[in-house]
């Protein structure tokens, strides 16, 4: 996987460490992390879960839809490599999804993932010392295993991401992560509400509705959450949803 130059790797680390920007947005930060790790590992798709104040894990970001589905499945079944990484604080790497050990540990997850064409999974805890705030899953369509160097790089990225989320708490206030996470969870609810509104308004299914909202946000250079909020509070003011993407 380490096909990247040291220079671009360094750039990714700096990006992941930089949470002290004025308009820090937790969802966008995690989305960026998922996208970077996916590029880094070339063939893997990446999903991220974070824990809330009540100890429940939530899906936060994924590099694509299949990673999102695999994360949601684990949450629904309460079983899977990401949950193991979260619970134990240890990385689960190079697990062959066709191997009996995977079928024994997470039967539903293994079946679903292999049906999707995945061959191997790796899961890394997001942690700083004793504090575990979530997990990152890498789902791979090949069995090209991560070597020790790759594992160290991905875990280091996960650590830097966790530290930069947690350090903000020590630098400014311990409560910042809770505030941001609760806000991000609510933003995800707004997006679901907006999907329903658009699905009804344009007589399409909710997945199409989501694509329409996302492409509207891109065309108009606005944030997804911002557009979703307008959809459910002031739908008549938004025009141009019908336009096909691109």
């Amino acid at each position: 996987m380490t096909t990247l130059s040291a220079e671009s790797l360094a750039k990714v680390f700096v990006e992941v460490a930089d949470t002290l920007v004025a308009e820090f947005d937790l969802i966008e930060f995690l989305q960026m992390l998922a996208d970077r790790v996916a590029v880094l590992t070339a063939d893997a798709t990446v999903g991220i879960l974070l824990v809330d104040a009540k100890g429940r894990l939530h899906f936060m970001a994924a590099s694509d839809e299949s990673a999102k589905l695999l994360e949601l499945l684990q949450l629904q079944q309460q079983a899977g490599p990401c949950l193991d990484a979260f619970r134990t604080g240890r990385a689960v790497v190079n697990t062959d999804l066709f191997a009996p050990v995977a079928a024994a540990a997470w039967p539903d997850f293994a079946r679903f993932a292999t049906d999707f064409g995945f061959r191997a999974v790796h899961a890394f805890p997001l942690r700083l010392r004793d504090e575990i705030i979530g997990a990152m899953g890498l789902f791979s369509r090949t069995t090209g295993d991560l070597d020790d160097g790759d594992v160290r790089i991905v875990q280091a990225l996960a650590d830097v991401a966790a530290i930069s989320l947690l350090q903000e708490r020590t630098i400014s206030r311990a409560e910042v992560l809770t505030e941001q996470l609760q806000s991000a969870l609510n933003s995800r609810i707004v997006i679901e509400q907006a999907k329903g509104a658009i699905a009804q308004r344009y007589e399409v299914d909710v997945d199409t509705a989501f694509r329409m909202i996302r492409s509207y946000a891109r065309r108009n250079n606005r944030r997804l959450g911002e557009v979703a909020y307008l959809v459910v509070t002031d739908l008549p003011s938004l025009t141009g949803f019908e336009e096909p993407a691109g």
Partner: protein
Amino acid sequence: MCTNATEALSATGVGVSVMSGDGDHRMAAASDPATERIEELQLTLGEGPCIDAFAASRPVLVPDLDDSVMRRWPVYGPAVHGEGIRAVFAFPLQVGAVRLGVLDVFRTHAGQLSREQMGRAITFADLAVTALLDGQDQPHADRDLDEAVEHRARLYQAQGMVMVQLGVSLAEAMVRLRAYAYAEDRTLSDVAADVVARRLRFDPSQS
């Protein structure tokens, strides 16, 4: 509920304010008369953690009313400090884009909420949302509170769909869904699944 929350969170008092986007704010409940006065303070002064939590749709947690807090809320800070309060934790009462108000936790000693207390505070805020939506002190038994992620997503999608079907606000759509489920003695997620699958519509002309 405010009294229970006060005890469960080792707080001095807990208050709930009902707020709307156009600035119509009023206190709905408080654990005791002294807290009632403190809760009203930010509504009267128009600034404070509760006002900010509502505006930004996120908790505003102030474990220590220090100098930086006095700068952030120059009128409210000294006023609430003068009442003996040293920590304020404000949790928005909301479901996505529907914002109903804020739950405030006050303490006479500085210090963070423990992880367990934070979880409890958010649970109390969820209960307050349910009570406000049902418009009564005893919310309908919420069989859907901890349901699977997928089901919850469908519930929110159904809210958006019913909003458009009825041409009402999202908050009203939410209330209509809950009332329907209650009247038909069905779970909210069942009803939501029917709405999303287009087996059930709420606009009278089409049902």
